[in-house]
C-alpha cells in the first residue's frame, strides 16, 4: 500500500468534489420538479395524461443509466439535424448531457416514490378537506403534499444517495469529477487499489452527510407524530 501516493492523490481528487456536488444538486432539484409533474400525471384518471407518464417511467427505469448517457451524449450527436439546430449548443456540452441524463433518471424514480406517497394519503383526509370546502389545488397543497413528503422522504433519501453514486458515470463523457480524476491518476500511477480507496472514502463521506441531513429532515417532519 503506497500511503504517500494516497495522501497526494487525496488533494487532487478533492478538486472533483465541487463538480460532483454541482451535478448532483442541479439534477436532483430539476429531477424533483419533473418528478412531481410526472407523479401528478401518473395518478390522473385520464388515460391520455397518465399513459405518457407511465411509459416515461417504464422506459427510464427499464434501461441502464450508462446506456442512457451514451445515447444522449454520443447518440444524439450523430443526427446532423440536431447538430445543425440550436439544440447543438446544449448537446455539444458534456456538462449539459450529464445533467440531462441524471435529471431524467431521478425524475422517473422519484415520480414512483412520490406516487406511492400520494396514494398512501387516506381517503378520509381528502374527504375531510372537501367537506370543509377546500378546492382541489388547496387540498393538494395543504393535505396531500405534506403527507406525501413525510411518507416518501425515507425512500427519497435513498434516491439522493443513489444520485451521488450515479454521478460517477459522467466521467466517461470527459467530465473530471471525483471518479474522472481518480481514473486519470490511476492511468498514470497504475495503483488502482490505493486511488479507488481514496475516491471511495470521499463518496462515503458525502453520503454520510447526505444521510444525516435526511435523517434531520425526517425528524423535523415527524415531530408530533405518534
Amino acid at each position: 500500500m503506497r500511503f504517500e501516493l494516497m495522501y497526494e492523490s487525496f488533494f487532487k481528487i478533492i478538486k472533483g468534489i465541487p463538480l460532483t456536488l454541482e451535478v448532483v444538486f442541479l439534477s436532483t432539484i430539476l429531477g424533483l420538479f419533473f418528478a412531481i409533474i410526472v407523479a401528478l400525471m401518473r395518478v390522473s384518471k385520464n388515460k391520455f395524461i397518465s399513459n405518457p407518464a407511465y411509459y416515461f417511467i417504464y422506459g427510464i427505469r427499464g434501461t441502464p443509466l450508462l446506456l442512457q448517457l451514451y445515447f444522449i451524449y454520443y447518440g444524439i450527436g450523430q443526427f446532423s439535424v440536431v447538430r445543425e439546430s440550436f439544440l447543438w449548443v446544449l448537446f455539444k456540452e458534456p456538462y449539459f448531457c450529464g445533467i440531462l441524463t441524471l435529471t431524467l433518471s431521478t425524475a422517473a424514480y422519484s415520480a414512483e416514490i412520490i406516487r406511492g406517497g400520494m396514494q398512501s394519503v387516506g381517503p378520509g383526509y381528502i374527504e375531510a378537506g372537501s367537506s370543509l370546502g377546500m378546492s382541489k389545488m388547496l387540498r393538494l397543497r395543504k393535505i396531500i403534499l405534506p403527507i406525501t413528503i413525510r411518507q416518501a422522504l425515507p425512500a427519497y433519501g435513498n434516491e439522493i444517495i443513489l444520485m451521488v453514486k450515479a454521478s460517477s458515470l459522467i466521467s466517461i463523457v470527459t467530465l473530471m469529477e471525483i471518479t474522472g480524476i481518480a481514473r486519470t491518476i490511476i492511468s498514470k500511477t497504475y495503483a488502482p487499489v490505493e486511488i479507488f480507496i481514496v475516491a471511495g472514502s470521499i463518496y462515503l463521506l458525502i453520503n454520510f452527510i447526505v444521510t444525516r441531513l435526511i435523517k434531520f429532515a425526517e425528524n423535523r417532519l415527524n415531530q408530533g407524530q405518534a
Partner: protein
Amino acid sequence: MRIFKFFTTLLITLSLSSFALAGDWSKIRIGTEGAYEPWNYTNAAGELVGAEIDLARDLCARMNADCEFVQQDWDGIIPALTNGKYDAIMAGMSITEERMKTISFSSAYMTEPARMSTVKGSPLTTLSTAKNLNLDDDSGATKGTIGTLNAALKGLRIGVTAATIHEDFANTHLSSAELKIYPTQDEMNLDLSAGRIDAALSDIGTIEAYMGTPSGANVAFFGPNIFGGLLGEGVGAGIRQEDSDLKAMFDKAIAEAAADGTIGRISTQYFGKDLAP
C-alpha cells in the same frame, strides 16, 4: 454460497498465478483493448481482429505456445498485467520510459508517428508547419514547430485518449489548448466528427482507419508527423518485469517475424504501409 464462490475463485487465481510463475509458457494470455482500429479492434461479428491479433497468433506459433486473448479497457491495461490477468499486452502500446518503471517491454514490433487531425473545412487544415517534429532533436526548429502548433491551438479543445503517449505530449507541449480526455479512441473519433473537440491527437493509422468509415469521412490531418522523445521507441509487447524469460521469447519471435517479412506483410494488410521497426 457466496463465500464458497469467493474462496473457489481465490483458489483458482492462486493456483493460476503460481502456474504462471513456474515459467511454463506453453500457454500465453495476451491482453488487448479491442477498440483501436486497425491495431486491435472488434469487428461487426464481435470477434477480435487487427494487425496485432494476427501478429500475436504468428508470434505464438513461433514460441510454440497456445494463445488466448483477454480484452481489457485501456486505462486498466497495465494494472491488469501486473495483477496477472494476462501475461503480455499487445495493444498498440508504445515503449516509454514512464511505463518501463512499472513493466518491461519486448523489442518494438511496429513503429508509427503520431499526428493531429481535425474536420475538413476547419482553419487548422491550412496550418503550415514543418513536415516532421522529432522530439529527440533539441534544435530551435523543434521549439519553433511546437510554438506554431501552440499558437494555432490556443483556447481550442484537443482530444486525446487517457494514459497514452499523446496525452503526455499534449500535457507537456500543448499548454495553450484545453485538453479533453477520452477512455477510448472510438469515443474521441465520434466527438471529433460531431465537433465537440476541435482537433485530436493520435497514431496516424488509427485515424486513417476511421477516415475510411462513413462517420469519419469528414476528418483530415494537419500539422507535422510527431515522433521520438516522450512518444517512445515504437510499439512493443508489455511484459511483467519478473518474466524476463517471456521477454526473451518475444524478442526472438519478433526478430524472426521482422526478418522474414511477416510484420511487413501484416502491417501492409492493415495500415497500407510497412511499419516494421
